[in-house]
C-alpha cells in the first residue's frame, strides 16, 4: 500500500512537470510585420495571424525546448489591395506556400530581470517552399500565465528564392526586416 501511494505521488509529480506547452494567445494584439525599405519606396505589411506553440520544462525555456510558429502570408496587408495581390500571387506564391514557418528550439536563456529573458533560438525558417537554418535572438517577458515574445531580424529574399520584382510600379528591398511581437499562454 505504501509503495502504491509512493507510485501515485511520483506519477503526479512527473505529470506536473510535463504540462508546459504554450499556444499563441489569439485574444491578444499579436503582430507580424515586414518592412521593405528602398530609396524609392518603403512599405510595410502586417498581419495578426500567427499561430503555433512553444514547449519547455521546469520553468526553464531552454529545457527540452521545442517551438513552432507560423504566420499566414495570405493575411498580410500592405494597405493597398493591388500590391497585396501581386505580392501574394507573383512573389510569395501563397496559393502554394500560404505560411511562413519557423521550427526550432531555445538553446539559451539569459535572465535580464525577474520577468524578462533574452533567448537564443536555433531552427529552420520555411518561406516560399525553401527551408533555411537560422539563429534568432529575442526576448520573452513572463507575466504568467501569459508570455510576450518579441524579436526582430532580417532575411534576404533571394535566400528563399523570392524574385525581387524589377518592373515599374513595385519596389521591394532584397533585405526584409521582420518584426514579431506576440503572446503565448499555457495550453488549456
Amino acid at each position, binding site marked *: 500500500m505504501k509503495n502504491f501511494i509512493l507510485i501515485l505521488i*511520483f506519477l503526479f509529480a512527473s505529470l506536473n512537470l510535463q504540462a508546459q506547452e504554450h499556444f499563441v494567445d489569439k485574444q491578444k494584439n499579436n503582430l507580424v510585420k515586414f518592412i521593405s525599405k528602398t530609396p524609392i519606396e518603403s512599405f510595410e505589411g502586417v498581419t495578426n495571424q500567427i499561430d503555433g506553440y512553444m514547449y519547455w520544462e521546469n520553468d526553464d525555456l531552454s529545457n527540452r525546448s521545442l517551438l513552432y510558429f507560423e504566420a499566414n502570408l495570405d493575411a498580410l496587408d500592405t494597405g493597398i489591395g493591388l500590391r497585396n495581390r501581386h505580392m501574394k500571387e507573383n512573389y510569395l506564391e501563397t496559393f502554394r506556400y500560404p505560411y511562413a514557418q519557423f521550427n526550432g528550439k531555445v538553446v539559451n536563456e539569459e535572465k535580464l530581470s525577474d520577468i524578462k529573458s533574452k533567448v537564443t533560438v536555433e531552427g529552420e525558417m520555411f518561406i516560399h517552399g525553401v527551408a533555411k537554418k537560422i539563429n534568432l535572438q529575442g526576448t520573452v517577458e513572463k507575466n504568467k500565465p501569459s508570455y510576450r515574445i518579441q524579436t526582430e531580424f532580417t532575411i534576404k529574399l533571394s535566400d528563399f528564392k523570392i524574385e525581387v520584382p524589377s518592373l515599374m*510600379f513595385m519596389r521591394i528591398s532584397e533585405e526584409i526586416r521582420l518584426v514579431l511581437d506576440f503572446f503565448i499562454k499555457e495550453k488549456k
Partner: protein
Amino acid sequence: MKFFLMFFICFLIIEISAQDITWKRTSENTTLTELRLFRSTQVINLPSAETYEKGDFEYEISHRFIPAIDEKGKFFGLDGPANIRFSLSYAPTDRMTLTLGRGNIDGNVDLAIKYKLLQIRNDVLPSQFSVRVGTALSTNFPSQERKIFDSDNFQFFAQGIFNTLYERTLGLGVVPTYLYNSNIYSAERFYSFTFGSYAQIFLSDKWSVMLEWNPTVTGYRSKFNPLSLGFELDTGGGHFFKFIFSNSVDLNTSHFINGASKQFFKTSPSFGFNLTRILK
C-alpha cells in the same frame, strides 16, 4: 529494487508524455481569399469572371484602328481613323464591379454591373462564375426624329461568365451573351444570342497570349463572327497592356456582340489595344 522500478516507470512516463505536442492549426489561421484565375477583368472584348478588390478603381482606354494592318499608306492601320472607348470601373465590394464607359460610335454610353456569384476551389480546375448585366444608350444617333432618351436608342445585355484555370497557365472561359435591340438603326427590335469563348495562356507573371471567339448562335448578326487574338503585358502594378488583332473594330459590349463587318482570314485583321490601370 521496488524503488528503482517506480523510478523507471515515472521516467518512462515523462519520456513518453513530454514533448507530445498537441498543437494543431485551426481555421482561425487560414484565410480564404478570393479566387483569382484571370488577372484582368476582361480578356479582349469579352469579360472575365474577375472582379477587383473593394475600393479599387480601374480606368480603361481602348482603341481599335479601322484600317486593316495591310492597308497601304495607313502605317499598319495606326493612322486611323479609330474607334475609341474610355471607361471607369469601381469595386464597391470584393465581388462586384460597376463600369461606366463611352465609345465614340454613336456616342454609345454603357453602364454595367458584374457580380461574382460562385467560386469553386479545386486543385485541378478552380473555377468561378459571374454575371454581368448592363444597358447602353446611343447618345449621338444621327437622326432628328429620335430624341436622346428615345427607347429605340437603348440596348440591354446580360452575360454569364464561366472561367477555369488549368495549372495556373491555361485560362479558359465561356460567355453566353444576350443582347436586346442589337441594331438601333432598324425600326424593328432585334436580339442577338452569342456564345463567346476564350483561352489565355499565361507564359510568365507578365506575359500572356489570348484567343477569343464570339459566334452568334441565334438572332441578329451584322456579317461575321468576331475572332480576335492578342497578347497581354501585366506590369505587376495593376497596369495591363493588351495588343490585339481582330476582324472586329467594336469596343462597347452592345456593338461588339452584334458581329464583325469583315472576315478574319480572307481579309487582314485590324490592330487595336486596351490599356487599363487600377487607381487607388
